[in-house]
């Protein structure tokens, strides 16, 4: 990638229990120019019939991205900073393999454009040393972008975790989830 001002000390921390469902991140996400100004963040009720809990989901930027592996068109790539980029528009054939295979349910298929789109950590901003749009506007810091030192001071009883267990499969990610202190992974199933 051409711009090398990407600050590798800065990391993304997500804590969906802090999400208040305000949708500020959704509006801010649409300001990201690498998304073509379409909002890519997911924010929705978890189970509206029984709870008002909302959840927020950005791309977790997996170390070994399933989306890129199952892509038949070699359209998804991971760069040297570990950012998994949205589909290369000239290659993507709109098959939806990535949409269905992503363990975090992140990619979106735009039907009219026959194109997969997803969060690429506001690469226009992060590659210039800035914070992603969603993290700059989140009022409850469910989405936080900063250093490990900063987050450990702010959340002394939590620990960032980047290992997820989906049945038999372990997935490691660039983005961290804030878990109770002492946790080493999050077992989803």
């Amino acid at each position, binding site marked *: *990638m*051409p*711009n090398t001002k990407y600050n590798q000390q800065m990391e993304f921390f997500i804590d*969906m*229990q*802090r999400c208040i469902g305000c949708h500020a991140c959704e509006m801010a996400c649409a300001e*990201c*120019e*690498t*998304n073509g100004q379409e909002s890519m963040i*997911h924010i*929705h009720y*978890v*189970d509206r019939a029984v709870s008002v*809990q909302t*959840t927020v989901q950005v791309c977790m930027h997996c170390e070994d991205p*399933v989306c890129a*592996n*199952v*892509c*038949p*068109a*070699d359209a998804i790539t991971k760069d040297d900073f570990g950012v998994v*980029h949205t589909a290369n528009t*000239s*290659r993507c*054939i*709109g*098959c*939806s*393999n990535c949409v*269905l*295979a992503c*363990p*975090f*349910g*992140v*990619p979106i298929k*735009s039907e*009219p*454009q*026959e*194109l997969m789109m997803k969060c*690429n950590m506001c*690469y*226009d901003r992060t590659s*210039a040393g800035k914070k992603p749009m969603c993290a700059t506007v989140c009022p409850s810091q469910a989405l936080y972008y900063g250093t490990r030192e900063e987050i450990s001071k702010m959340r002394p*009883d939590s620990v960032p975790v980047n290992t*997820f267990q989906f*049945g*038999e*499969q372990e997935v490691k990610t660039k983005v961290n*989830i804030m*878990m*109770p202190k002492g*946790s080493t992974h*999050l*077992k*989803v*199933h």
Partner: protein
Amino acid sequence: MLKLFQTLNTQALIKATIAAIAVVILVLAGSRNLQNFDAALIAYLLGTVFAVFGIAYRYSVWLQRPPTRLYWRRSWQFLLSKDFPSYAWRSLVLFFKNILFQRFIYPRGKTRWIGHFLLATGCLIAFAVTIPLTFGWVHFTLEQGSFSTYNANFFGFKAGTFELGSPIAFLTFHALVWCSVLVTIGAVMMMKRRLTNGGLIATQTFEGDWLPLILLIAISITGLGISYDYTFLQGRTHQFMSVTHAVTVILFLVWIPFGKFFHIFQRLAQLGANIYKVEGERRGMAVCPHTLEPFASHTHVEDLKNISRDLGFDFRLENGKNHLDFSPEGKRSALAKAHFEARKNSGKFFG
């Protein structure tokens, strides 16, 4: 160098060699044993044969990847089924809509579509004109006994007649001029996007995004230079113009298998993906255990389980189900629920 030979893909090498030999045979047949072959175009022919070899090699390697192989097999399986007429018709319509007119780019941006359409149309017409000429499949002769009637011959057979100086002759002989104008306008429009769009500026690369546009403009301008030379300069700069044009075209041909231009050949897979989606929906939809709504075809979900397992990912759950049985929303909710449980069990939701 040794590493290059060690990493060669044998299957792809065989297929690429067959493709390259097939081109040479077609050249010999189409030009009637080189009788109608224009020797001045030998460098272009060598470039084209290399391009065919490279494209066939990369295509073959590409098809060996598990997800691509599955789409390839499924596409042909569904196309050649009892529903062949409807799928063939659908593919034909989509070929015009999505390949020739690139209709799917329009929702991405009107100006972007216009730019790409001009660029792609110019390239496709130029391919249609230059490849038969380079291969000696098409050549022109004077009608016997006439100094003003031209015959267009295809594979050595007379395929059409027109008068020199007629509008058809003008359009035909300047076909590549029109292509150059289309390509130049399209490429400049695409360059403007790359200079002004913040998202593209952040992610583009020189060799991936700028080099193809520069090459296309270089081909167009040097090609127009040849026409300008023989029209207005009495051919005084012919040698310079023809050599620079040949260099740019050959660079382009050699670059096709390696760079962005390979997407011209990959794009056809979009037709297969469409058939796959339609046939999948006919066979039945998978219902998400969380949202209780259909979200994708059952065939697609099952195929993905197999592909991901082939690629080393095992999303099987202890209860015999699979994480991939969940819709994207179901997966996000499962993660949120697990996170909620972990926080609840720790006795603290925040901190």
